[in-house]
Structure formats: structure tokens, C-alpha cells
């Protein structure tokens, strides 16, 4: 029975979220709360220490450059890059995310970014730690190529230990093969 | 075939060996001969030394008789005659003494000569005795050798005869064995279907313990009653581990009663069962 719970809760949550904001991409459902039966409705953000929430960030920005800031933060608000199975190449759809973060880092030399590499549950655990690190390295390379400095970036791989979705199907796995970009 | 060559070779070798032995023994006998010579050397110097030790005394020279003048017939003559007579007497006496002396000397010489002769004779006799002894020894040695040679020939002959006899016996035994084997083979062939049934039943009841050796070859000796009831199962060759041994023993015990042969005359009380994991491990 509990097995069923685990399988369906994220799907249910994703469906709810998708219903609420239809424009969001499938992958962004990562940031949606995965509710555990018996816990509060309070959304929990599983892995990132600092997941960007549009409103809180915006509060601190100057109103004069409001549009630019909005655009910039909108770019930074997508803070996850997803990958194909056993692959570490960054798909073209994430180039804009890389660009936004590279711009942000080069514009803010004191800013630091942590890259958390993850893998889906398939494959062995230690191999997946390697795979997660390889994905984080790919993001790091893309960022430095576009102006970020190595000193601003740190890397950690959790392999499959911190899944975004605890399901055991491709829908869950696709959300777990990722690098999270966490501003510090 | 080979065996005959071997015998031929052996006899040639034996003859050669004997010849060599004979040749060698001649050296041996000469050495034995030498002993009397050495003894003779000890004796021989005594014979020639004897004259030197006792030189032949020269025969005593008669004293030269003094030429005395004829006495005169008168008083003077008588005196002369008396004197002459006395002289004559003295001369006679002297001559007599001389003669006696001479005689004694001669006797003595004769005795010595005799003694010398005796010694010489004794030496001669000793030599002859030695010669004879040597000759006798030589004869004995020759006889002995001849005897040995004869005995060796006799032995070889006997050996050859024994060999021949044995070969004949072997041939006979082989023939008998072949007959027996043929009979046994015929019996074995007749027993085959029955024994396959026995083997199949034991095989069905044999469970090798997991994780046991993959290579072993052991034998269980079964004693059964005519009904096939196993009365004794003894491991005569171990599989190498107690667990495998127990498994093969159990296989036999669990197969009791064993299948019976269709013809009761084919029944054998004892069956030795060889167990191996694969057919090639049995070889």
C-alpha cells in the first residue's frame, strides 16, 4: 500500500501544480512540493538550500531597472538543468539558463554558485555519484566558457541519494537526472 | 619373442662372465702357488750353507817317518840292536798311534760326511715333499674348477628347463584364463542389463551435497542378499570428504533392496560401485 503512495504522490502533486500554472514546463515540477501523506500542506523543497522564489528575490531589486531585473530573475528562476539517461551533455533548451547564470556571475564577481549533480536511481550508487559529478562539471564548463570564474563555482554530487521524485518510472527519473544551481 | 632373446642374452652374458671368472681364477691360483716357494726360500739357504758351516776336515797328514840308521849287531850292536829295537818299537808305537789317530780321524770324517749326506738327503726329501704338495694343490684346484664349471653348466641347464616349463605352464594358464575370461565375459554380458538397473537405482538415490568437490572417484563395496537387500555398504575408496562419503553410502543404502537379476544364476553377492561426478573423472 505504501508503495502505491510513493508512486502516486509526486504524480498527483505534479498534476496539481500543472493545473495551477499551465505555462510551466514539465521539468519545473521539481520545484513543486512533493507531499507526503500525513505531513502538512507546507511545500518542502527537497534538495536545494536556496531555491529561487520569484517574489522574494524581486523585493530586493531597484524599481528603476524593474523590467531588466524581472527578466534577469526570470532567467535565474529556472535553476535546474536536466539530462538524458547516463548522459552529461547540456540540451539546447538549457542554453538560456546557462547564459543567464553566466551573466549573473560575471556581473557579480562576489556571487557564488553551488552545482549539485544528481542521477536517477538506475545504475549503481557510486557510479551515479560519478555521473552526477560529471553533469555538474558539464554545467561548470558551460558557465566558465561564458564568463563565470572557477572560483565562483563549487561542485557536489549526490548521485541518486537525493531524488527529486521518489517514483520508479521515467517520469520520476527524468526529474532526478539533473544539476541544481544554487546561489550562495 | 623378446623373452627368448632375453634368455639368449642372459646365457651369453653368463658364459662370458664365467670365462672371465675362469681367467681371473688362474691369477688367483698362481698366488696360492707362491706360498710354498716362499717357504722354500726359507729352507733353501740351509742346504748350501751346510758345508761352509762344517768344512770338510782335511785328512790328517801322516807324520813323516824319521829315517833311522840300522842298529849294530854287537853290544854295541846289541845295544845298537836294542836301541834299534827300542827305536823300532817306539816307531811302531808311534806308527800305531798315528794309525789309530788316522783311523779316528777317518771315522770322524766319515761321520761328518754321513751327517752331511743326511742333511742333503733331508733337504732333497723336503723339496720333493713340497713339490708333491704343490702338485697336489694344483690338481685339487683344477678339479675344483672343473667341478664348478660342471655345476654351473648343470645349473644353467636346470634354469633353462625351469624356464621352459614355466613358459609352458604360463601358456597353459593363459589358455585357461582366456577360457575363464571368455566365460566371465559371457557371464558379465548376461549380467549387464541387471547391473545397469542397479546402477540406475543407485544413481537416482544419489544426491551430492552442495558445495562439495567437483572431482572425486570413490568406491563402495556392497554385500547383498539374494533378494537384493543390502547387508553391508563399505567405502573402500574415499571420495575425499566425509560429506561425499556419506552421500554415496546413503545412495547405496537407500537403494536397498537392489533390483534382482532375471536369471538367479547371474546373481553375485558383492558389487563394487564406483562413484564419480562425471564419466571422465572415473578414468
Amino acid at each position, binding site marked *: 500500500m505504501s508503495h502505491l503512495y510513493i508512486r502516486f504522490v509526486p504524480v498527483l502533486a505534479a498534476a496539481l501544480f500543472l493545473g495551477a500554472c499551465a505555462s510551466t514546463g514539465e521539468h519545473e515540477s521539481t520545484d513543486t512540493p512533493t507531499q507526503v501523506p500525513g505531513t502538512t500542506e507546507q511545500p518542502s523543497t527537497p534538495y536545494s538550500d536556496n531555491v529561487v522564489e520569484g517574489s522574494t528575490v524581486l523585493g530586493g531589486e531597484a524599481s528603476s531597472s524593474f523590467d531588466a531585473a524581472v527578466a534577469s530573475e526570470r532567467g535565474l528562476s529556472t535553476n535546474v538543468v536536466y539530462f538524458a539517461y547516463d548522459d552529461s551533455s547540456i540540451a539546447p533548451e538549457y542554453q538560456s539558463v546557462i547564459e543567464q547564470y553566466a551573466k549573473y556571475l560575471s556581473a557579480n564577481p562576489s556571487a557564488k554558485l553551488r552545482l549539485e549533480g544528481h542521477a536517477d536511481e538506475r545504475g549503481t550508487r557510486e557510479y551515479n555519484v560519478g555521473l552526477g559529478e560529471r553533469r555538474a562539471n558539464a554545467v561548470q564548463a558551460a558557465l566558465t566558457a561564458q564568463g563565470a570564474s572557477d572560483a565562483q563555482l563549487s561542485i*557536489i554530487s549526490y548521485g541518486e541519494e537525493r531524488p527529486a521524485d521518489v517514483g520508479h518510472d521515467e517520469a520520476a527519473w527524468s526529474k532526478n537526472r539533473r544539476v541544481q544551481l544554487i546561489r550562495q | 619373442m623378446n623373452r627368448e632373446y632375453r634368455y639368449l642374452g642372459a646365457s651369453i652374458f653368463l658364459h662370458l662372465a664365467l670365462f672371465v671368472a675362469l681367467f681371473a681364477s688362474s691369477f688367483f691360483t698362481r698366488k696360492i702357488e707362491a706360498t710354498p716357494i716362499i717357504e722354500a726360500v726359507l729352507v733353501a739357504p740351509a742346504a748350501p750353507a751346510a758345508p761352509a758351516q762344517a768344512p770338510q776336515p782335511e785328512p790328517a797328514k801322516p807324520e813323516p817317518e824319521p829315517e833311522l840308521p840300522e842298529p849294530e849287531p854287537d853290544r854295541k850292536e846289541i845295544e845298537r840292536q836294542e836301541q834299534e829295537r827300542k827305536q823300532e818299537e817306539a816307531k811302531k808305537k808311534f806308527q800305531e798311534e798315528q794309525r789309530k789317530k788316522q783311523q779316528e780321524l777317518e771315522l770322524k770324517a766319515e761321520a761328518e760326511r754321513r751327517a752331511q749326506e743326511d742333511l742333503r738327503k733331508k733337504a732333497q726329501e723336503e723339496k720333493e715333499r713340497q713339490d708333491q704338495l704343490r702338485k697336489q694343490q694344483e690338481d685339487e684346484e683344477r678339479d675344483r674348477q672343473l667341478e664348478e664349471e660342471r655345476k654351473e653348466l648343470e645349473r644353467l641347464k636346470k634354469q633353462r628347463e625351469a624356464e621352459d616349463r614355466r613358459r609352458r605352464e604360463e601358456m597353459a594358464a593363459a589358455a585357461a584364463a582366456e577360457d575363464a575370461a571368455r566365460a566371465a565375459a559371457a557371464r558379465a554380458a548376461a549380467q549387464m542389463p541387471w547391473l545397469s538397473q542397479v546402477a540406475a537405482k543407485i544413481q537416482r538415490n544419489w544426491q551430492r551435497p552442495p558445495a562439495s568437490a567437483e572431482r572425486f572417484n570413490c568406491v563402495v563395496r556392497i554385500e547383498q542378499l539374494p533378494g537384493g537387500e543390502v547387508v553391508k555398504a563399505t567405502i573402500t575408496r574415499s571420495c575425499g570428504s566425509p560429506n561425499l562419503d556419506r552421500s554415496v553410502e546413503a545412495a547405496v543404502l537407500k537403494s536397498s533392496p537392489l533390483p534382482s537379476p532375471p536369471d538367479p544364476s547371474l546373481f553375485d553377492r558383492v558389487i563394487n560401485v564406483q562413484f564419480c561426478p562425471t564419466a571422465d573423472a572415473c578414468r
Partner: protein
Amino acid sequence: MRIPKMLAAALMLATFAARAELEITVTGGDVAALPIAIVPFGQVPEAGLDIAQVVHNDLERSGRFRVLKRQDMLQRPVQPQGVNYPTWRSQGMDNLVVGQVARAENGGLYARFFLLDTVRGAQLLGQEIPIRDISRLREVAHYISDQIYEKLLGVPGYFNTKIAYIASSGLGYQRRFQLMMADADGENPREIAASREPLMSPAWSPDRKQLAFVGYERGRSAIYIYTLATGQVRKLIAEPGINGSPAWSPDGKRMAITLSFENNPDIYIVDLVSGARRRITDHYGIDTEPNWSPDGSKLVFTSDRGGRPQVYEISASGGDPRRVTFLGTQNQDASYSPDGKSLALVNTEGGRFRIGLLDLASGEMRLISDGRLDESPSFAPGGAVVIFATQGARGAELATVSVDGRVRQSLRQAGDVREPSWSPLLR
């Protein structure tokens, strides 16, 4: 030559004929689980644990015994005198265990058991074990299992060993990771370490006194060593990047690990006495999951240097690795069997992850599990059984499978459990 030979043959035949002893040959024989019946022990009421049931489960789980179900027992003797051998023989039960837990005249409890060979009607074992602590009756049961196992198979039993594993519960920040230790049958679990950050890859020292594992702290990973006797945890190594896959050398003096501080994950060997470190592989691919051959001369590891992750073998002193897996789309996380003849590994074929046994001599692979996401195989001492992690009905769980793949059993565990590591025998 021909004639004497023929003669000899004829004579031999004649000898046989004269002896009149038949010779037959039986080859094959099934390598089969040993039939055994464990009769419920006669127990005083205060001995709560069903010892016979524990022994039954132990022996059955090993895959090397076929244990008679209780309901099929036609008699239930508690001592050899009461045994009717033909009854057990007729049920094909070659081996029989009877026993008691009783109170001695001095008031102390003891367990007494007999292992009987019903085919020969002989006693193979008979022991009396004083019970000093009734709460440790399970250990006594495992001890009895060990004795029976060793007597009938000729190799030591492994039932009084431990398993270490990782458990987790909760989600997100509430997720809690635990390093756990339990009896080999999954009973008596206890927590060794806990963290809000992942714990991974527990590995027993060969002397069974220490456990190495991977932990995360403030965004960095490290290899830790836990000492059972003192409960102390010390950090062995914490380089930037990956610190993973600890594996003790068979002599316990070195540890193979994965480090990535020199750009990408490679295999290193650390001397645990001097701390000296030696890089064994140097490739831009992922090299990880090293495990030692029983003689300590070689390592197997996972590498994707050929494209997909596969298992490679390399001398413990370095050199050129040799790929050993070619079947399936990928193979990972290999470890040597105790006899060094085969590897247990995670084989992927058709999107399924299953535990495979690779015979190193023949290159033959046998899949011994049938889950979809099975991983982390670890041999029991003696190599009769492999424990692994699988997705069960209640989530991630641990299961054992006999190396012939015949007997699979999942272990009773609460929560998500994974990465089992079987302890060595206590020597």
C-alpha cells in the same frame, strides 16, 4: 610386447572372474539441496523464541537445504530415543534435528540438540549449550544452524554474522539517513550513525571490528571509519569532489577508494597505517566501485571508459585494466566470490537491473535475481548466498538469494533499506 600384454589382460580378467566381484560405475548424482527436518524443540515456556524455526529459516535461506514443512511431520520427537527412523526415511528426510530447551537441575537453562542421519540410523552431532542470557536465544539458534551447516557441508556456517546497510526515511529536508547493523537474518537492527545528509557504501573491515562508509557534511563528502567496540567515528579522507566506494584489502591494511580531486573519479589505494596514497587508474572516464580479490592481488572496478559502464580487473599495483564483462548493456559494482572464481555484479539488460554471477574462467553469466532495480550484491562468508537491495512491495528492501538462484528471500525491514554489506566470519 603384444603377447605379454594380452596375457596380462587375460590374467586380470581371470582374477576378476576368480574374485567374482562385480564393478559398476555411477556418475552424475544431482547436486541437490540436502533434505533435512527440524523438529520443533521441546521448550520450557520462558524460552520464547522458536529455536527450530530460526534454524529452519537459516538453513533454508542458504539454498543448500530442503527443509521439511512442519505440517508434513509425522512425528515430533524431542530426543533421539523417540525417533522412528523409517518414518523419516520414507519421507526422504536423510537428516533430522531434534532438540530441547530445558532447565538443568542447578536451575540454569540449556539447549540440547541432536543431528541424526536417518539413512544409517546414526547420530552425527549432539550438543548441549548453556543459555546464560535468554534474550540472546537467537544467537544460540544461529549457533545450532552453524553446527549443522558445517557438519553436513564441510564448510563453516555463517549464520552468526552481521549485515550493515543504509536506511532512509522522510523526504526533502526531513529525510534522515541511517547506517544500520543487524543479524544476518535481518533481526536485531540497530543504528550506528545517522545524518540529514546521505550516508553511503558501508564496508566491513576483514576483522569485523570496523565499518567504513561515505558521509556528507556541509556540501562535501568524506570517508569515515566507525569502530564497533568504541562507537567512535573518524574521518579517514575528505578530498574535494568525490570520496567514495571504500573497500578494505583482505589483510585490512589498505583501502581501495574512489577520489575525483584530480579531475575525475579514479581508483586509489590508501595505506591505512602510513596514510600513503597511490593512484591505481588514470582515465577521463568514471572509474569507481573497486573491490579486492580474496588474495589481495587484484581489484575489480566499474568504468565507462568503453562508453557504457562495464567491469574491469586490474592488478592491485596498477597497470593496464582488463575488461571482464561483455554480456548485457552494462555491468557494475562487481565483487569477488570468496573463492575468487566468480563475480557478483549488477547486470543491465533490457532496462532491467539484476544481480548476475559471472564465472571468471568461462565468462558465463548467470542472473540470480529477477527484480527491475536490483543492486549492491554482497557475498555471505563462504559464498553460498548473496544479499542485495531490491524494490519490494513495501519499497526498497534487502533480499538474499542462494548462488544457484533457487532460494530467494527478503529480509524483514522497516523503511527504505539499501546497500547491504555482509560481515566476515568472526574468527
